[in-house]
């Protein structure tokens, strides 16, 4: 199966994301923001970084990139899409996911190993985990505070669309310790911390991030 990894100008983590896709057992396919072509991929990863320099708002300009028009259309038809960090911000700006990511509550750019709990293992990107499984993966961002109105928060919680929460102290002021959410169908997932940096203990805090990338294979085989 083919998983596209999109590179925008300013994207940082596309290489690690492509490596993680490969380690998960799929073929990584490089996609370019300016191409209106998904190259027949079965799923897409929007990696972290600072697309378009984070100008205006994080993800606000990327949303209008030619490749994103195809991603939005395909995601609405059920194609699995995972947005990590800046990718999560792009998914919110694209209205594929509700809410928004705002400046960390203490204003600091955070870069650390973070424990998260997978609280919904029924999505295309989390089915390799046990429900409630705790994993340690890197968290590195300046605007990772998940915000939404009370009604949206109640909807996300009520429909089980919070897929991961931070464990312990709230690192960035996110409502309800939210580290990741999904759309209603569960094919689109946004995650603030970085599983692609935790696929090998030699270079990451754990290899537990790999689960997000093996999940997508399970989802396609089902």
């Amino acid at each position, binding site marked *: 199966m083919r998983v596209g990894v999109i590179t925008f100008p300013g994207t940082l983590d596309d290489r690690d994301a492509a490596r993680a896709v490969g380690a998960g057992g799929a073929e990584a396919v490089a996609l370019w923001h300016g191409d209106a072509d998904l190259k027949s991929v079965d799923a897409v990863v929007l990696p972290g970084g600072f697309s378009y320099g984070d100008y205006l708002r994080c993800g*606000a300009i990327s949303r*209008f990139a030619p490749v994103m028009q195809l991603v939005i259309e395909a995601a609405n038809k059920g194609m699995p899409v995972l947005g990590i960090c800046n990718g999560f911000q792009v998914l919110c700006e694209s209205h594929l996911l509700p809410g*928004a990511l*705002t400046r960390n*509550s*203490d204003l600091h750019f955070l870069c650390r190993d973070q424990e998260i709990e997978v609280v919904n293992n029924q999505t295309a990107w989390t089915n390799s985990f046990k429900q409630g499984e705790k994993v340690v993966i890197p968290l590195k961002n300046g605007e990772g505070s998940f*915000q939404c109105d009370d009604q949206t928060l109640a909807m996300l919680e009520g429909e089980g669309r919070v897929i991961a929460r931070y464990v312990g102290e709230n690192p960035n002021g996110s409502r309800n310790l939210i580290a990741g959410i999904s759309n209603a169908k569960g094919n689109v997932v946004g995650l603030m911390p970085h599983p692609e940096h935790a696929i090998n203990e030699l270079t990451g805090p754990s290899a537990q991030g790999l689960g997000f990338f093996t999940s997508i294979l399970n989802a396609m085989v089902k």
Partner: protein
Amino acid sequence: MAKIVVDVMLKPEILDPQGNAVAAALPRLGFNFAKSVRQGKRFEIEIDGEPTPAQLAEVEKAAEVLLSNPVIENYVVRVEK
């Protein structure tokens, strides 16, 4: 030539850490007037001639679609003389 100004502010219920940091810095410099501070963005858009209602409607649309994120921000469009 006219100038159209779009002010974008975080909604009142959204936490503004930058505004809070400014509010905390003011008294350290001896400025003791501020009860609270909110920080926003201002766009200055120049156009030829006086804006028509149709142009202003277009700016409103751009403010909604691109210049602001309606999930967390409000905007105001006005013409500056």
